């Protein structure tokens, strides 16, 4: 804060020390609260010495006055608070999530100087190294500290009688991990390099979230034993709350404990184990310098088999350690900021219009105040105080709302389990600033509305008709803004609703029920030596699994459907973008999936064993490239990119279409290649159970344990994966639908209040018009049109904005829906127009049914 004060640099250090010293003295004498209050005051006083106290004194009066006024107009006050707190609750919830996801980061200190160490060799760049390579790098690095990390998950039990829980995210890290990331502990200690050579059960550091949610914040947690996978581990510390590197990790173990957790293997870690490497630059080292030095170290490593390129190092401060790519983060942030902005604009416009409506009725009061000697600035301040007071109440209500909404929104956007969404200081600051801005903005609106108005004429009795044109423009602008924002929000909601139906009716081309992906949960190193050992082990496993009654089939596939993984290439841009999914399978995969062969044949045993350059393609892909002839015997088209060093395969068969990933961007283009024995290390076991079979899954687990006693078997249902994927648009539809409905409600509240008070002012005019021979129908038409005109203009603007936004917004968010969807747009406009008419018709009818004689008589 001091950095912002109008002081020179030399003075600042001095003032800083003074202020801190005063703070310490006051805390000693009068307590922390007093000291804080005076601290803020002192800092404020650096701008204008002495002034803040005076302002505060007067504000007390303003607030009292505002409170009395609110007590007299509970309706308006409740409406405003309701509107503003809804807006603030949504904005706060959205901001909390962005805060957790983007702003807070995961707690890497000075992350620019903690780059990922990437392994490049020829044209291939990889994020993973072998553990033995890492040891070599760590040994040789002089310009940076190199550290390794393996991300994985295992089930964790905190008490012997606790039931099995789903997999908990954890990281296996080298000893200097905490030093390199800057992670600190609040209880106990973090890892030190010596922890890699632990004796007895491995040490574990808990995340704050884990400590709170699983151990009830046990204060004597250090020394406690928890069960992780297949080993006991001793807690040595709890990381501070903001530290969750990488990817909301819940636990950290030494990298050398990897085999203990998964295999209870005496060998602590296999030298071939894949690890991610990152580093912390030495204080005096530059990125390029460290990169060159480490490349020199890496050049001595044995080359990748089959290539002649030396291994080199690239340092990338933007990736590694679970960092999300900047572009992804930016698009999330932009989307959330856009929503927050829209909702806030809406809430402010709404409050402003209610206050303007109230101000119309208060012209007389303002006149009296002016006559008694209040300056214009003083009156404006009164108005601003009132709306800030409203804002503060609304912020409190909004915060409660946000507390309630955050977990719901968190579930909707599928926040990972370990993420800590609870509001922190950033969120409170955000809420405070937004409330202040909203309050001041909304308070200035009636002031602006009243500018240039003769404050005296209202005093001359209510006969004087003060006709003006400028203020009406402000009112129209407010109504227009609200209508435009509402349309935009509702269009988005409508798009998601339609996307929900579209996804639900999407044919994935296979029956997901009874399909499971089996996670053996044992290190592949336990499979035996070399490709032959792996192949033999898989053969045993598949034979054993297929002998279980109720199992229809079992096979290996590189990428199981809807398991979260995918391998795809894209060609073309924009609407011409074409995604092609690649997979490597055994021949039995197609029968298991229920995929029919349309033409040609599937892989033979020899083709699989020899890694023959052959491929099966999907029907749609065949039709796209060979519309009028058979693709059999052709090579895969050159404009479908392949991984490097792969020969272009010959097409031997065409199979029916399936969609196996990413429902929001469904692609029926698929290429299947044989999963050869050398690649079986990448294989995943899939099983299909026979319909009606019960308890099969448990039996499979049992059989697998007889083969591999150290296995930690888990199953993922493909049907569940599909359901989760299909549920995503529904979540988003609900979320934006709720926001859209709130938008309409706010808009109607604002419009009703404004129309009622504007028309109330014109009662006399209506009386005159009636007396001059206008029919009630004429009056109704006139008033309706005048009130609805800004709404119609706003609808137009909102529709235009929706069309424009449609171009900018990433199309993938809309699950293959065009944002320019005419039905969604028309629907939104009709809904809003009907709501607006309802809001206007009530006050209008009242005005039109005025008794001309009575009105004229009164004046």
């Amino acid at each position, binding site marked *: 804060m001091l950095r912002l004060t109008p002081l020179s640099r030399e003075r600042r*250090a*001095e*003032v*800083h*020390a*003074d*202020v*801190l*010293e*005063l703070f310490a*003295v006051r805390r000693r004498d009068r307590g922390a609260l007093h000291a804080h209050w*005076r601290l803020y*005051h*002192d800092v*404020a*006083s*650096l*701008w*204008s*010495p*002495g002034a*803040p*106290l005076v302002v505060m004194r007067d504000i007390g009066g303003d607030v009292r006055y505002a409170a009395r006024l609110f007590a007299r107009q509970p309706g308006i006050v409740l409406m405003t608070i309701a509107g503003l707190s809804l807006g603030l609750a949504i904005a706060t919830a959205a901001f909390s999530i962005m805060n957790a996801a983007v702003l807070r980061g995961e707690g890497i200190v000075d992350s620019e100087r903690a780059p990922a160490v990437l392994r490049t060799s020829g044209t291939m760049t990889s994020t993973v190294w072998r553990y033995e390579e890492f040891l070599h790098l760590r040994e040789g690095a002089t310009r940076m500290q190199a550290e390794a990390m393996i991300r994985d998950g295992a089930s964790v039990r905190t008490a012997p009688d606790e039931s099995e829980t789903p997999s908990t995210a954890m990281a296996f890290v080298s000893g200097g991990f905490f030093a390199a990331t800057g992670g600190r502990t609040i209880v106990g200690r973090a890892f030190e390099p010596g922890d890699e050579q632990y004796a007895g059960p491995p040490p574990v550091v808990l995340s704050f979230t884990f400590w709170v949610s699983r151990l009830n914040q046990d204060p004597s947690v250090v020394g406690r034993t928890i069960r992780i996978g297949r080993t006991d581990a001793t807690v040595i510390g709890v990381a501070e709350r903001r530290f969750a590197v990488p990817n909301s990790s819940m636990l950290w173990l030494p990298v050398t404990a990897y085999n203990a957790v998964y295999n209870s293997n005496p060998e602590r870690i296999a030298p071939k184990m894949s690890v991610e490497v990152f580093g912390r630059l030495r204080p005096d080292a530059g990125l390029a310098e460290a990169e060159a030095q480490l490349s020199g170290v890496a050049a001595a490593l044995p080359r990748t088999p089959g290539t002649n390129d030396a291994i080199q190092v690239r340092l990338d401060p933007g990736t590694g350690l679970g960092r999300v790519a900047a572009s992804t983060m930016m698009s999330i942030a932009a989307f959330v900021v856009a929503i927050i902005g829209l909702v806030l604009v809406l809430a402010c416009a709404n409050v402003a219009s209610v206050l303007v409506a109230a101000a119309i009725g208060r012209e007389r009061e303002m006149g009296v105040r002016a006559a008694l000697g209040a300056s214009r600035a003083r009156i404006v301040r009164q108005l601003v105080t009132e709306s800030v007071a409203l804002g503060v109440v609304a912020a409190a209500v909004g915060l409660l709302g946000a507390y309630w909404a955050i977990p719901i929104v968190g579930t909707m956007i599928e926040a990972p389990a370990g993420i800590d969404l609870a509001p922190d200081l950033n969120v409170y600051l955000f809420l405070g600033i937004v409330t202040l801005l909203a309050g001041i903005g909304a308070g200035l609106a009636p002031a602006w509305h009243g500018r240039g108005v003769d404050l005296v004429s209202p005093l001359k009795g209510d006969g004087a008709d003060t006709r003006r044109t400028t203020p009406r423009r402000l009112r129209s602008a407010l109504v227009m803004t609200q209508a435009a924002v509402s349309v935009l929000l509702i269009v988005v909601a409508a798009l998601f609703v339609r996307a929900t139906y579209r996804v639900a009716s999407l044919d994935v081309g296979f029956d997901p029920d009874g399909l499971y992906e089996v996670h053996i949960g044992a290190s592949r190193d336990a499979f035996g030596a070399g490709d032959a050992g792996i192949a033999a082990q898989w053969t045993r496993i598949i034979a054993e699994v297929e002998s279980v009654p109720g199992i229809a089939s079992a096979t290996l596939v590189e990428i199981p459907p809807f398991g979260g993984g995918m391998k795809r290439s894209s060609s073309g841009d924009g609407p011409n973008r074409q995604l092609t999914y690649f997979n490597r399978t055994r021949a039995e995969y197609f029968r298991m999936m229920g995929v029919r062969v349309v033409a040609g044949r599937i892989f033979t045993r020899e083709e699989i064993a020899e890694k023959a350059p052959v491929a099966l393609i999907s029907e749609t892909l065949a039709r796209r490239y060979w519309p009028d002839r058979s693709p059999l015997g052709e090579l895969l088209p050159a404009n479908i990119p392949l991984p490097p060093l792969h020969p272009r395969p010959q097409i031997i068969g065409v199979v029916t279409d399936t969609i196996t990933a990413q429902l929001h961007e469904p692609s029926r283009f698929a290429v299947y290649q044989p999963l050869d024995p050398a690649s079986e290390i990448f294989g995943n076991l899939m099983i299909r159970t026979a319909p009606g079979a019960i308890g099969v899954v448990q039996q499979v687990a049992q059989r697998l344990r007889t083969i591999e006693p150290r296995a930690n078997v888990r199953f993922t249902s493909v049907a569940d994966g599909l359901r989760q994927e299909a549920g995503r648009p529904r979540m988003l539809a609900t979320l934006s639908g709720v926001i859209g409905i709130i938008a309409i409600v706010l808009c109607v509240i604002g419009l009703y209040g404004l129309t009622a008070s504007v028309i109330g002012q014109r009662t006399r005019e209506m009386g005159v018009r009636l007396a001059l021979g206008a029919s009630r129908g004429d009056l109704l038409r006139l008033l309706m049109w005048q009130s609805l005109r800004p709404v119609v203009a706003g609808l137009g603007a909102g529709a235009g904005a929706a069309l424009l936004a449609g171009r900018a917004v990433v199309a993938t968010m809309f699950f293959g829906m065009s944002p320019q969807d005419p039905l969604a747009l028309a629907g939104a406009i009709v809904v809003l127009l009907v709501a607006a008419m309802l809001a206007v018709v009530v006050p209008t009818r009242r005005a039109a049914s005025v008794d001309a004689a009575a009105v004229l008589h009164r004046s």
Partner: protein
Amino acid sequence: MKGERLGEFEEFTLLAVRALGDDTYAVPIQQYVEKVTGRPISVGSIYAALGRLEEKGFVRSAMSEAVAQRGGKSKRLYTVTPSGLKTARELHRVRERIWNAIGEGARS
């Protein structure tokens, strides 16, 4: 500009510097003025007053050596100049004369 004269708050500040035995700094000055006047004084107004006093040549300031308790930061020490002392005395004398006059008036 008040020229070579002292405002009320400046007078308090000047006298506080003197009372604290010269070579003093903002924190004790603020504490002293707050205690004597019995009203909350912001540190900003103390800085402002000291600044004005220095401009007028009534106080002098110098940076101290770095002080360990203040995180190695040095502090600005203020001392009342002879002209400052003279002006304050002058002011006091004027006041005294008036009070004496009031006192005499009250007796008669």
